[in-house]
């Protein structure tokens, strides 16, 4: 039942940023390509920072005695 969860957008953005960082550092990119992915990185950075700073903690309560009636599945 536990499906493989997809990564959160935030996590995806961060890992893409890491990828870009590695590419810039390690690969011998053509200047034009380097600038293109650098620009992408700057955009991602901005949106990540914005998300972080504007986020507000969400709290939800899971109610129900339902679990009591759940048998030991499987």
């Amino acid at each position, binding site marked *: 039942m*536990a499906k493989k*969860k997809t990564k959160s957008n*935030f996590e995806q953005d961060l890992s893409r940023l890491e990828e870009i960082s590695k590419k810039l*550092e390690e690969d011998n990119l053509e*200047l034009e390509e380097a600038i293109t992915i650098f620009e992408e990185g700057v955009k991602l*950075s901005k949106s990540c920072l914005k998300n972080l700073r504007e986020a507000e903690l969400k*709290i*939800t309560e899971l109610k129900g005695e339902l*679990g009591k009636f759940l048998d030991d599945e499987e």
Partner: protein
Amino acid sequence: MENSTQILTVSELTKEIRRTLEESFQQVTVVGEISNFKSHISGHWYFSLKDSSAVINCTMWKGFNQYVFFTPQDGMKIIVNGKLTVYPPRGSYQLDIRSMKPAGLGELQEAFEKLKKKLEAEGLFDEKFKKPVPVFPSKIGIVTAIDGAAFRDLVSVAKRRYPLVELVIAPARVQGSGAAESIVNSIKLLNKSGDIDVIIVGRGGGSIEDLWAFNEEVVARAIFKSRVPVISGVGHEVDFTIADYVADLRAPTPSVAMELATPDAMEIENYIKEFLLKSSRIIDEQIEEKNGDILSLLKSYGFRIPLKIVNKKSQQIDIIINRILQSIERFSLVHDKKISLLAKSMETYDIQRSLKRGFVLVKQNSKFVTRAAKFNKEKKASLKFYDGEVITR
């Protein structure tokens, strides 16, 4: 009973025994060791209490045993309070227990060690079963009391470290009667909801009795069975519970559990800032490098030769242009002279023709007189004919 001739039925005798015993032992407190403990599906408990030379059957009905904070185990020394009852169909007597407590803290400690050994032997603590805890969770499930200090701590740590996350609390009783079942229930609920990334199970500090629910076998097994990774955060640093051993990750306190469950926003921010700095420096360097490449290319031999040629050629061109300019100048000078000579001669030619036709040029005081009014009769005049000049008086 003095009367030996009186014959009693079994029921009559038993009734007498029952009355005698139940009246004499309406409220007794007994210490003994548990053996043959059974928790019936109905919720009632059946077991024996014994010491080195005697044994007594015990029952504890559901209505009473739900207030016991621990699950009795065989070998545990307990102190019970109850009354003696007789069960005529079997001719047996038993202790009907109302309350129960461990005979000492050592008992709980022993129970703890026993359960720990048992679960360890079953492999519930094995590293190979430990599930990895995600670094960037979207939803964190929480199993604790919603009105407890632990929950407040969990919320404030999450707010500070990673406000992007959603906390999903499945409230549970974390001490006293029914706590273990309540915790199990909440763990199951969170697993059922399907989208929880990690579960924190915990509560704040307290006595060993307060924390006991986390030493219960049912809780340990629920944590083990949880498909969602579980972080335990129970009590203080010094408190170790069975839950801690089974959990995928053990935190010394609830606050630390939340720290382990979340990345630090400050660190992420620093990482991003560092990325911006580093990558822009890389780009700058690359541009600088390319700039240098271009400059050195321009300075290279291959580029210098044509430049020399160009320089030389342009010098030649300059010289040629100069020459052309000079020759044009000379040419026009010569021409100018010719033109003026021609013009003069043409002028002269024109006058000669007029003279030839009989016109005369009159001069007085060496100026031409072109109008009659300007002629002075008193003065000398010179008349120029085609064939010569005459002076008059």
